């Protein structure tokens, strides 16, 4: 077999020795380079095209997801797996983002976050404004876990804290929620950094915000905004949802 190849190689070399050889080689190089560039660009673009919907259980993520995509109200159950779909951001522009709705259940949330955090261009953290007083510690804990995550600190995706369920009268306002969260996160970063180190002593949790000063959302490397919204809508199941702020922010982010 080797003997058969040698005459072929010789023939090839003879053929290629002319100017044709140079053009063939150039063509090949051009193809390879464009291929690499295309792969690189696509990797960059598609690697961060997702908007994640995070939050505790019963915050309203799945309903928000349904409303943004179809505009209709659906009865939802506790999610046990993620759902993703492309969302056209606005009518004139053709940009679209992939909305990913992750389950909020405690045993599942971290696992799904791991899977999708690298692809996140923006994060929508949905907060139940009605049950906020009761759940403030859990909300802060989950938010803290999201914020100190290494990948998220590196990519610094835009963060929107959507205070959902504003149609109920007892809902807290976005300002109040912001203040409470800042206070809670302040205490959390002290307690978490003082916790016993991990088993394999992988570096302790990253420092959130500036030391010495009280925690403030402006200290984070990413842009954080607060917005009020209501997935159910003030008119009940038939009416439209109040998602103006959310949609405007999505347009900005895309």
């Amino acid at each position: 077999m080797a003997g058969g190849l040698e005459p072929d190689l010789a023939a090839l070399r003879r053929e290629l020795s002319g100017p044709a050889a140079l053009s063939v080689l150039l063509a090949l190089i051009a193809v390879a380079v464009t291929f690499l560039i295309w792969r690189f660009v696509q990797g960059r673009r598609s690697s961060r095209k997702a908007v994640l919907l995070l939050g505790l259980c019963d915050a309203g993520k799945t309903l928000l997801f349904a409303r943004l995509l179809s505009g209709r109200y659906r009865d939802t159950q506790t999610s046990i797996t993620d759902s993703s779909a492309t969302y056209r951001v606005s009518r004139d522009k053709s940009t679209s983002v992939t909305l990913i709705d992750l389950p909020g259940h405690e045993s599942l949330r971290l696992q799904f976050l791991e899977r999708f955090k690298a692809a996140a261009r923006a994060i929508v953290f949905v907060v139940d404004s009605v049950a906020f007083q009761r759940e403030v510690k859990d909300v802060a804990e989950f938010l803290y876990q999201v914020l100190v995550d290494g990948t998220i600190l590196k990519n610094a995706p835009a963060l929107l804290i959507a205070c959902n369920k504003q149609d109920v009268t007892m809902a807290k306002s976005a300002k109040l929620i912001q203040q409470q969260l800042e206070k809670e996160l302040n205490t959390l970063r002290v307690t978490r950094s003082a916790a016993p180190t991990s088993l394999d002593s992988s570096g302790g949790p990253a420092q959130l915000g500036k030391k010495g000063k009280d925690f403030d959302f402006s200290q984070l490397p990413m842009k954080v905004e607060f917005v009020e919204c209501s997935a159910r809508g003030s008119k009940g199941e038939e009416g439209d949802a109040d998602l103006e702020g959310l949609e405007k922010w999505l347009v900005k982010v895309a």
Partner: protein
Amino acid sequence: LLTAPLPQERGGNNSFTHEALTLKYKLDNQFELVFVVGFQKILTLTYVDKLIDDVHKEFRDKYRNEFQQKGALGLLNGTFDFKDDFMRLLRDAEESSRVRAPTVMKTFEQSLKSQKTVKCMIETRGEKPKEKVKNKKNKGSKKEGTEAAAAPSKASGGDKQPSAAGDKEELTKDEILQKNREEFFRRHMKAGEKSRSPKPDAQKEKGKKPRVWDLGNSNAKVLDYSNSATNGSAEACPVEEFDPDMALGDKNREPGRLYDLEYESEDETEEEKVVQNTSKPSAKKGGLGGMFGMLKGLVGSKSLTREDMDPVLEKMKDHLIAKNVAAEIAVQLCESVAKKLEGKVMGTFTTVTSTVKQALQEALVQILQPQRRVDVLRDVMDAQRHRRPYVVTFCGVNGVGKSTNLAKISFWLIENGFSVLIAACDTFRAGAVEQLRTHTRRLNALHPPESHSGRTMVQLYEKGYGKDAAGIAMEAISYARNQGFDVVLVDTAGRMQDNAPLMTALAKLIAVNAPDLVLFVGEALVGNEAVDQLVKFNKALADHSMAQTPRLIDGIVLTKFDTIDDKVGAAISMTYITSKPIVFVGTGQTYCDLRSLNAKAVVTALMKA
């Protein structure tokens, strides 16, 4: 249903009871659907399984296109008008169950059934020669021989359809039995082999009926039989009795060696032979088909079936058990993973093994990151604000490291600026109070009052030995409240989970004092015992509390973690049973050996080969 068993990997069972309803569910992993049927617990509806299967098939066929093409949008926008179909299926199922009912009551059928079960009993005995060998000694082997002889005779006598199908199996089993029997005899007896064969034939007639009823240890019966039987057996008996090899056992054996050891190796070889025999024909059949199947499985989308997953799951289960996970938990975990993966379509270039391993890894990480993380410092700060002490109780069996880890945790709390009161409620063990006093003195030496603005960081509250633990705890808590201590750590005596009066005493202590955190201290060396300990502790706490929602174990402290290198299965067993987090991990006997659990590291250690 969605919040409890499915995410927590308890999905092995098909049904789930919640209050007055029983929910039976079925997972469709290909399209990620869950079908649930709920009915009242008191009703026993036989058609539910069939109904759920029919519904599943119809729904899937009807809306297959929508799922495949549109994904999530299809789910959202599609209107699933399934109500009429569902009512139709329900009516069919109800009718079919009603039709079936009268035929069961025929007595002729009963007798057929009884005949079949008897046959099944004999067949299954033939299939498990290793069990027989394990249970009986040499004399019992006679019974084997008679069994084997009885089975083919019955097969020849029986003329029903099931027997015809089973004939082939029985013959091969018989072959196996014969071979095993011969090996067995050859090893243990030098003579008397030939005399054995006429005996079984002679006894087969009489041996049929009573033998059916006793499935095990009936050596006495068999012996009786041989003594009173025909001449052939009588003369063979004494030869057997006085056979020196038989009486003394194998001459090659050393005098001090345990009989069990040899027994087991023999079992294993028998087992291997059986396995080889049964696997050889199947291997021959599957030779060529297997190669193409492997290639097909490598490329293209193949959906996972139970048979594909079973060998891999078996291996995984054994691997987990070797890593010190409790046996029943390993079984349940594998079941749940199997249910989750059944019918799932694999991507290209993924093998069954890798898919199963991936799923198992995810399941394990999920188990180790259970509900709310217990953040002690946060809760202590809360209690500080309300001006009351934060009470932590340590319970566990004897010798797991409660007092040692209590000292470590109090050191950690002092480092973070909280003052600690240690309540010595172990009034039983000699030296318990002195041990805690020594720790207190040492901790105060490490953190003298001068460096903490003049207040002693640790103090011991003790009332000596022999007093009631619950009373001491209550006094300690009120003392802490008066003196302004931030945390109270209550040390209890170690007790076995089976010891009813001690468990009652512990439950009383916890019910009366209502601690903020009940920590169960367990050592990482424990194996299957962990399941029993935790279940019984939780049960005792639940039974003896008067409240509506009893205080159960809130967290686990896993101690002696440095003694196991990578057999970390105890962590999984404990969190699976209680679904509560592991709050601390103890890795040594000095004050700094306190760690928190890193779920991913533990799972990697567990899955490592």
